[in-house]
């Protein structure tokens, strides 16, 4: 990696947008890179818009706060696009030239002619895949949607290593101490109760990530 990459994650409350960002940032630091992670949300409630921002760089990162000009945009729920549940309109506002977008959806997102043209001018690439469906089928719970999204990111970029992300997952669910909030703690327990052992949780999360690759489709503008 020679340049800083700025990743904006938009999703809905309860989908693990914040957790995914912390895991990605942690993985990047394990790979010897510099990273900052910033979550952003209103009152904590399910299905409300939630975003998080991850910067990954080979050298020191100075700025903080939201990422207004991302290189990569990850959309965790189709409603972010169709219902405008994000902090920027359209969802790709500020996307840098040759930027990447990764969308969770069973089918291609519906974009207007104007949006297609704007993205074409940017030389952007948009990938989509059924992250929630994969999480349910492979991981046995839709709570693994965020992990599937991280798998998707690793399939289309090499921003962090598999080893880094595996270790970060183990840290997050295998006894690491960080919990974003009391609501997240409750979700964590719900998630843990779905798996007999933490090791099984980790294995199935890794299986979800590995299953993503072949399901990714590229959108043609």
């Amino acid at each position, binding site marked *: 990696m020679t340049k800083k990459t700025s990743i904006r994650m938009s999703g809905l409350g309860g989908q693990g947008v914040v957790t995914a960002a912390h895991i990605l940032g942690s993985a990047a630091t394990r790979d010897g890179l510099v*990273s900052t992670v910033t979550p952003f949300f209103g009152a904590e409630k399910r299905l409300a818009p939630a975003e998080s921002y991850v910067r990954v760089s080979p050298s020191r990162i100075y700025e903080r706060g939201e990422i207004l000009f991302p290189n990569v945009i990850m959309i965790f729920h189709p409603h972010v696009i169709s219902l405008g549940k994000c902090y920027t309109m359209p969802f790709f506002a500020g996307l840098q030239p040759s930027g990447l977008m990764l969308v969770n959806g069973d089918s291609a997102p519906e974009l207007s002619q104007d949006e297609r043209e704007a993205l074409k001018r940017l030389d952007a690439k948009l990938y989509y895949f059924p992250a929630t469906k994969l999480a349910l089928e492979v991981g046995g719970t839709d709570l693994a949607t965020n992990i599937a999204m991280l798998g998707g990111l690793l399939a289309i970029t090499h921003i962090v290593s598999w080893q880094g992300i595996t270790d970060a997952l183990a840290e997050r669910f295998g006894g690491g101490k960080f919990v974003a909030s009391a609501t997240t703690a409750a979700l964590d327990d719900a998630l843990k109760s779905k798996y007999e052992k933490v090791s099984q949780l980790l294995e199935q999360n890794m299986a979800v990530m590995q299953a993503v690759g072949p399901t990714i489709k590229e959108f043609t503008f």
Partner: protein
Amino acid sequence: MANTVNQRVVTPEHLLFEAPRTKAFITGSEAASEAVRRANVDIAIAYPITPQSETMERIGNLFAEGYIRDYYRAEDEVGAFSAISGASRTGVRCMTASSGPGLMRGLETIASWPGHRLPLVFLIMCRVINAPLSIQPDNLELDYMLTSGNILLHGENQQDFFDYTLAGFAISEKCEVTLPVAVAVDGFFVTHARAWVEMPSAELKLPPRDCYSEAVPMIDNENPPVRIARDAPIQKSNFISYQMHAAWQQEIHAAHERSRKWVSRYINGLVEVVNPEAETLIVASGSAVSQSREALRQAEEMGKKVGLIKVKSLRPFPTAELRAACRHAKRIIVPEFNCPGWLNREVRATLYGHSEAKIADGPRVYGGITMPTELILEWLFKSE
């Protein structure tokens, strides 16, 4: 068992500057609680409602682990800030945390701490306070803190939150100071965000509060709580009550002046200056400093030299330092995360008659958005 009993007491100087440090990738709230872990705190007072952060929850865990001797959950911010007044009067080391609307609710009590000469540490995670409601970072509440009589430090990042919190206890309890120290950071961008923080070993801790060496005696069986209550100025019994209240306020002001050397010592100067020779300068505090550092880097890529003055301490305000650093300046901008621009007002008042520089009235963002570095660059070179 790892707890405060097994920690080794070291001097604040050793803990802050000499002890070897290791790096951790943690959030601002984690950094604050790691500082409290090493601060030999007797009691933490909590009213952890949204919008806050997980700071007081994490500090509750420290109590469970045995790093804090007592933990009290108050009924609201008035209760929390009153409880810490009582705790501090008894001579124990105490801390609390709040943010935005919660801070505003307890402001009456906060403004009473300095007059009662209460050493304590108050952590602030800045959030929007005004309607329409929002819980995002906006540091307007610090405007209200500026005249409250509290010492007020404004951290830029997670590392500052760790260091300033530890320094806060050391500054607050100095005999010449004996004042509450508020340590503020911008919410979300620091409290909820992760970055590298370097910390000394958790096996070390600050010396305990030495309450018999402070400017006013604490309450015990020999010092009943009479120092203000008996003949309180509020009774206006005679001319002495006015004199006393005036003298008391002057003494708080004097304590702020005396605190300069300790604040400067424990947080490495009231300001940090980058590129001091530049004629175009940014003066900033909090998260705006981080945005400014990136703007400096981008300006340098454009072949332009820009200077940066990071204001670390808002009270005491770095008057002499700012005047010295801006003596040669031609243009100054003051990026801020609030609408009225309280730092801009401070900078203008401080530099009036001491600098020929044109001071721009901005840039500012508010309502909880971050400041794009592009905005800083635009304001820097607007006049060209």
